[in-house]
């Protein structure tokens, strides 16, 4: 395999792993439910994006054609991640999950 492709794949995997790890740390460290929502939704965007991109490079450099399926996976993730974050936040507000004291502004429930 082309060495440039190998370096690019390794780098993208590291970036993806790093952001997924940071997302997990954020989930554990941030103070309340609403701030914790930010961790996982972000890990999917950059973390999974980088990992999927490295998979695209791997399979194209092996001459098995450009992996359209991987690109589609990314598109689906980018389409569904905001929806699930939105539903989680809505559900939390509906059952009245409290925000941390440092949060300014109020939730609403309609």
């Amino acid at each position, binding site marked *: 395999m082309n060495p440039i492709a190998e370096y690019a794949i390794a780098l993208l995997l590291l970036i993806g792993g*790093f*952001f997924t790890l*940071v997302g997990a*740390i*954020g989930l554990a*460290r*941030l*103070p*309340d439910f*609403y*701030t914790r*929502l*930010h*961790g996982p*939704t*972000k890990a999917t*965007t*950059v973390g999974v*994006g980088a990992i999927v991109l490295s998979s695209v490079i791997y399979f194209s450099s092996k001459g098995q054609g450009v992996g*359209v*399926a991987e690109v*589609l996976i990314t598109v689906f993730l*980018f*389409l569904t*991640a*905001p*929806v699930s*974050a*939105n539903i989680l*936040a*809505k559900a939390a*507000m509906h059952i009245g999950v409290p*925000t*941390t004291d*440092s*949060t*300014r*502004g*109020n*939730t*609403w429930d*309609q």
Partner: protein
Amino acid sequence: MLDRLSFPQPYLSLILFAVWQFLSDGVSGASVVMGLVLAWMIPQLTRGFWPDPPFFARPWKLPPYLVLVLYDILVSSVSVARLILSGREPKPILVSYPLELTHPLAISMLASTISLTPGTVSADVSDDRTLLLIHALDAESDDEVINAIRTRYEARLKEMFQ
């Protein structure tokens, strides 16, 4: 009866058909048949969720917008990662964002953009579609959040849809 056999949303059907061809390892007889079934069935089943057909006044503005959003995702991921690793307490804020967009598809695109860009999650839309509740992870004031979204995303979406 004929209505039930039609394609209520030709573009959505086309996209579904094309996506199915890409997903099923190469075009074959089976994938074309299955693609046609899906392209017919999914718009039929979900037609209740699309009260007005999607409408773009300036569709060519969409690709630059997507590039901008991708760039912002990268930049702000780094800033959120830095916040998480720094150990500093975040300053979360809930912002009621007064929407200028009116088209439901435009609003949902704005809400998705807000949720995808790190640091902000859109939590709810008011029933009359005039307010968007946004949770920002770390911001000084609601004006800061509102201004950033207003100029960066909503202005561009408005051009696209109106």
